[in-house]
């Protein structure tokens, strides 16, 4: 059952990701990114990470895609193959294929016989206890980083008087 769901979602993710980096239309690119993010959210649900899945839906699908669409609209970029792709495309394809070959061979050899055993889902309160007891210091540091990035973005995008 889990393997069937994984196969379908993996096919969706692969299709959307490949179309994202080859499409000629910027807005279609944002839609394919949405497909990738939704597929990854389903994978999180499948792998019993319920809270991470809903954070993915809220932060990525809710905020990040809308922010990217705003960026696309504000910079009204030209539509067309030549305008979107750089001269270094063949070299980029070689680098990406080499990376995929090396990393996939390594993980395939290292984790060939290992299997995941699905137990009962982790509840949100156990994850919340972990965040607010053991990982509370990194959590606070991340919140400061987020605040600094927010202020930095406002300062950068503000018009000079």
């Amino acid at each position, binding site marked *: 059952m889990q393997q069937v769901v994984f196969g379908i979602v993996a096919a969706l993710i692969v299709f959307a990701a490949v179309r994202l980096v080859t499409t000629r239309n910027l807005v279609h690119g944002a839609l394919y990114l949405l497909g990738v993010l939704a597929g990854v959210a389903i994978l999180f649900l499948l792998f019993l990470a319920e809270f991470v899945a809903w954070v993915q839906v809220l932060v990525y699908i809710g905020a990040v895609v809308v922010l990217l669409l705003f*960026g696309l609209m504000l910079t009204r970029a030209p539509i067309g193959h030549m305008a979107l792709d750089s001269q270094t495309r063949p070299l980029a394809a070689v680098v990406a294929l080499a990376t995929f070959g090396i990393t996939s061979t390594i993980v395939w050899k290292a984790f060939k016989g290992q299997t995941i055993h699905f137990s009962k889902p982790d509840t949100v309160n156990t994850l919340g206890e972990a965040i607010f007891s053991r990982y509370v210091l990194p959590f606070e540091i*991340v919140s400061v980083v987020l605040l600094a990035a927010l202020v930095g973005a406002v300062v950068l995008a503000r018009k000079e008087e």
Partner: protein
Amino acid sequence: MPVAPVLVLSSFLFSVGIYGVLARRNAVLVLMSIEVMLNAVNINLVVFNLLLRSISYIGQVFALFVITIAAAELGVGLAIVILIFRNRATVSIDEVNLMKW
């Protein structure tokens, strides 16, 4: 369920992100490809959390941290892109080469 196909999917997604970053000329598309790469890392973190039966949930907690940092990175990145567009009327990475040696 075997774990290797999941990791191969994750490495495929990461490689597609690398291709997008290197081959695309539009800065907003480069930012999108970076988000794809970060998602590939998140899949790995969540799956390893399940595989190793971590009782401290380190994998899921770090996936949440990666999502937060990705949001911060995207905010600052888009602000820079919009600033470049305002100053030079282009978002093409090929034409922004002032700091290139």
